[in-house]
């Protein structure tokens, strides 16, 4: 009975998880290269999952393909290029640096630089102005301070 149930479960539309034992290459160094490459390749039918993580059948096919290329003697770049040739840039989880992705790659550093520059300019202007005006009147400031101190003990 138990065996029958096991059989049923085994035959159900299977959700076989990510890397399976039969996929693993005998050479440990080749296998770890395969894992590293697959972690950066997108499972084309999933939402932002790498083929290394994905349960989809397509991801398995791609994992096997990566391993085939490695066994055939391709280096990491060649394996990636081979897949990009067939599936386009969409398969790379790390988009290549080119004109269409310039804005994507430069935004983080651009925002940081622009923000830093704006802060610098503002603090210089503020210090020049600060000599001229005080923000709160002295009595207000004293009252605020007293309140804060009374409550903030």
């Amino acid at each position, binding site marked *: *009975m*138990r*065996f029958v*149930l*096991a*059989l*049923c*479960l*085994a035959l*159900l*539309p*299977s*959700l*076989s*998880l*990510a*890397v*399976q*034992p*039969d996929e693993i290459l005998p050479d440990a160094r080749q296998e770890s290269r395969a894992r590293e490459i697959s*972690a*950066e390749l997108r499972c084309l039918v999933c*939402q*932002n*999952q*790498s083929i290394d*993580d994905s*349960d989809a059948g397509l991801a398995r096919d791609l994992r096997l393909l990566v391993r085939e290329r490695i066994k055939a003697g391709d280096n990491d770049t060649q394996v990636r290029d081979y897949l990009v040739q067939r599936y*386009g*840039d*969409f*398969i*790379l*989880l*790390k*988009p290549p640096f080119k004109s*269409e*992705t310039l*804005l*994507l*790659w430069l*935004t*983080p550093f651009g*925002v*940081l630089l622009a*923000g830093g520059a704006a*802060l610098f300019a503002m*603090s210089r202007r*503020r210090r020049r102005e*600060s000599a001229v005006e005080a*923000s*709160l009147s002295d009595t*207000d400031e004293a*009252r*605020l301070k007293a*309140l*804060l101190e009374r*409550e*903030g*003990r």
Partner: protein
Amino acid sequence: MIVEIGHYALVLALALAIVQALVPLYGAIRGDGPLMAVAQPAAVVQFLLVALSFVALTHAHVVSDFSVVNVFENSHSLKPLIYKFSGVWGNHEGSMLLWVLILALFGATVALFSRGMPDDLRALVLAVQSWVSAAFLLFVLLTSNPFARLDPAPLEGRDLNPLLQDPGLAIHPPLLYIGYVGFSITFSFAAAALISGRIDAAWARYIRPWTLGAWIFLTLGIAMGSYWAYYTLGWGGFWFWDPVENASLMPWLAGTALLHSAAVMEKRDALKIWTIFLAILAFSLSLLGTFLVRSGVLTSVHSFASDPQRGVFILGILVFFIGGSLALFAFRATALKPGGIFAPVSREGALVFNNLLLTTSCATVFIGTLYPLALEAVTGEKISVGAPFFNLTFGPLFIPIILAMPFGQMLAWKRGDLLGAAQRLVLAVAIGVAGMIVLEALRGGPVMPAILAGLALYLMVGSFVEIYGRLRGARTIGNMVSRALGLPRSAWGTALAHAGVGITLFGLAATGWGVERIVTVKPGEPVAVGPYEVVVRELAPRDGSNFKELVAHTEIREGGRVIAEMDPSRRSFTTRTMVRTEAGIVTLGAGGQIYMNIADVRVDGAIDLRLYWKPYVALIWLGCLIMSLGGLLSLSDRRLRIGVAQRASVRPQAAPAE
């Protein structure tokens, strides 16, 4: 009948929301007390009506009323009771209703607990809040009606997606939504301040409990979601930089920045314009998250275009509120004069630095999430932006934040002493570096995990140096304890929350030391994983209420002795003919976990296993809990307690800042 009452209550709530959006606003502009006073009762009744509607939908789910489309599509008479409750928000319509419920709850809370607030400010806040809820009530009623009927009623429902039949669904969305929607209050406060043109330190104090509250829940919600993914997805991943996750991370980053800049504003009357901007930003990002998740734009730009009704509606809401508030900001912000002056090296300066980095990392997540969508919409070209991109950009941005966190606590307001702070942090730095070296020597392998772990240790220790400095002078233990208790709770809150970040970082660093085994075994055959040995004793079938499962009774041994047991399984759900694996997880030692999943069962009885030893992994979520606890401590600080604002307002009407 109950279903129709629920539907009708929702329509009434919309009508009331429109009244609440207009009358107090007009009253506040005209300075008319009675008109302003409409806001409070309206907010409370609006909440009661939405609550009634929510209860009606829940009732339909619990009694399995399949004449309601929503129940038919997402429930089954045999579904366990807890999932009949959580299934209410396990679908689009129900989750939008929960969204609106929480929105109305926040409005009612402001109405009930704001006695010390100036009347016009309260009226404006509640009016703006009601603009938001009117928009979303309209959305629910026009495009996502959860009360639609089916005739004839089917005999049985289609059941809830098995992946959602999990306690995670009961907890994660409500926490996350309270966080998301909580920022609506700070948004309303910001808009009210811009409309009235008045903003001061008291305003910063009013919003701080709301910001803190929203932040606490968002932190918990994100952590819960990540743990849920960890234990359901079957291989122990917990963060994928998926757009849906990014959608919750963006408001968290903006909210964290807001929390810190509001502190500056409260203490020093500075950074006003920036704080207002962040308040708008945090909620705008919450709206953006709702749009991304609810419109279907993520699945594909094309599926969005083919069934655009919902998406376009939310996009409209998004444009109206973000555009409207930013326009208001552009018109009025210049009227707000900057306040206190500070030197670059000061507590304020450190918080500005924190804000710069947090907003930049937020912008990074934003561009990484939306760029592929925008590029596809404009050029038709498809690219992917995944974990490797974010690790390269977001990662380096967060390291200076972590380095600076203990410094920020140490610097004085107005003008700080960087060298002095560095001297006091020598111990923390020493522990961090020593930890780095020791861990690398013990573990070997790539250096990155050890470096991050060392950084984490530095942060954990550094977070408490400031408090230690305040206690150092005490001569007896008793004296020290009484001093410790006398410190403001917000000081403890800050220290704890910062230490929580360190703990999470340590857990993240330790993922680099994990061990993975992917093997095929027969029952009884031991597998070594890390310092332990795992043996599947036997496979046995078991029946659940709406599923059957095959359970692997498994033992974990250390040095030949059995130290723990677990029961990972494969469940097959009959109604949707779907198989789901249940991971076996056992926590051992300092937050390390053995994680096991049955990938497949072969005809000859052999089992394909995915087996992991994940040292310290639980610290990732423990750290988040501690961050929230820190937030909670700050929230309980007497300065922030409800009612204190009342005493503060005894002083003459807060003067316009000029």
